[in-house]
């Protein structure tokens, strides 16, 4: 289970996330919602230590995966990211690699050489990402020849190939059309059987459709969290109600 406690994130001393504590139950989908600039993407990127790469970013508090602090002294950010994968807002396949090489990039570039292993990993990751049937005859093609939705599913396959425990998704459908979005949402339900998903979304219908739990952020703070059904039918806080009924945001 992924959890954070009293998490604060600041950029050049400007706080963006102000003391958030949250649990993300295993094998469930948790949606993080909130208006633009509320810190939801910033929060998500703390869970796989992406802020380590940003000069001026400072993360305090704890993030634990199965009880281990991922920011602990003995933890290597590179290894942490193999356990906690990420899919970005815009599909970002590697344009210099084939579809096949994209899927296994996370294995081959850390030293996995065995062809059989790579081949199997690619096939099962593409199946998990519901892309296998569409690309099985063109694995050597350039990924840029795929549609936007296919590219995003390729990025999901690429993340799944390293077998993470948690998949972080940063508005994975915001650049896609409704049909491509539906395919990815469908895929999320199947992924839930094997890993936890944390999805940041702008789209409240999407949060309501796909997630088990929802967390509502506002101005860098956690306003409310709970079962998605309850949050959307009977929110406890006034701000949550105003946001999900579209009064602001």
């Amino acid at each position: 289970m992924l959890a954070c406690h009293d998490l604060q994130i600041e950029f050049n001393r400007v706080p963006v996330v102000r003391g958030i504590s949250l649990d993300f139950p295993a094998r469930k989908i948790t949606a993080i919602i909130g208006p633009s600039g509320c810190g939801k993407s910033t929060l998500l990127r703390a869970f796989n230590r992406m802020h380590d790469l940003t000069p001026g970013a400072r993360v305090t508090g704890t993030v634990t995966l199965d009880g281990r602090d991922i920011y602990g002294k003995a933890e290597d950010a590179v290894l942490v990211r193999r356990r906690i994968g990420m899919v970005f807002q815009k599909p970002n396949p590697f344009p210099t690699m084939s579809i096949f090489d994209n899927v296994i990039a996370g294995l081959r570039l850390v030293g996995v050489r065995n062809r059989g292993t790579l081949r199997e990993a690619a096939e099962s990751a593409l199946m998990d990402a519901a892309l296998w049937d569409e690309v099985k005859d063109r694995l050597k093609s350039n990924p840029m020849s795929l549609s936007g939705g296919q590219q995003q599913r390729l990025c999901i396959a690429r993340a799944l190939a390293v077998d993470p425990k948690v998949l972080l998704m940063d508005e994975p459908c915001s650049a896609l059309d409704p049909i491509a979005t539906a395919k990815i949402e469908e895929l999320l339900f199947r992924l839930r059987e094997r890993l936890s998903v944390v999805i940041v979304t702008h789209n409240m219908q999407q949060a309501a459709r796909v997630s088990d739990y929802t967390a509502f952020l506002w101005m860098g703070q956690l306003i409310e969290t709970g079962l998605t059904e309850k949050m959307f039918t009977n929110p406890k806080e006034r701000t949550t109600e105003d946001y999900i009924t579209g009064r602001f945001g």
Partner: protein
Amino acid sequence: MEGVCLLAALIAVVPLFAFLWHLVAMGAGAFSSALFTQLPLPPGEAGGGLKNAILGSVLVVGAATVVGIPVGIGAAVFMTEFAKPRVAATLRFFCDVLSGIPSIVMGLLAFQILVRPMHHFSALSGALALGFIMLPVVVITTQEMLHLVPHSLREAGHALGIPAWRIASSISVRAAAPGIITGILLSISRIAGETAPMLFTAFGNPFMSWDPRAPIATLPHTIFNYAISPYEDWHRLAWGGALVLVLGILGATLLSRFILWWHQRSLRA
């Protein structure tokens, strides 16, 4: 107004065509297999070629390239992929300054470092001078090309738990490779034509030399010597050599254009 600008544009390209026409007209006469296979003859005897200068240039430029390219690319990768922004900006500033230093001063530096301690001119010192001149060009073009690689690709690499050095080599440099190769070819063209620093480093040699410690002939320097000589036949060879040099540089430029075009086409496909 448009007419005036058109005229200016025509005037701007006139030197190129005037130069090419002149070069071909004067150089074609010397352009034969002898130019590539024979050594120069003593003054007054007709015939001979520039084998020593052509091969000498290849050797000196080759030696400078073999050292300059890995160091230049390594420095650019460090500055773009690993260094803190302030460190990268400082290093880049040094490279910008370095690239503006006149080539004859770089020759002087090689003279001071190698020629004086060794007490004689050498191919090695010529290669060192050319390496100094080439280095900032390679660093700057490689860095520009790496900057064009979208940050999202590096992020994707990090998110997969790929180590930083592997992201730099297999993702960033690989994506920028066609641009980097173009930069390399252009920097080779740049140093292949350098004459001033050769005057007191490689020095020139009327014979074929393979010894890095001995003076060696280079094409631009030989052209200079032959062009100012009083002998008709050496003038002819100078034009022939100029044609070889220009064709080589033109070839490198066209090749770099082709690589870029081919890469862009393959990205669209």
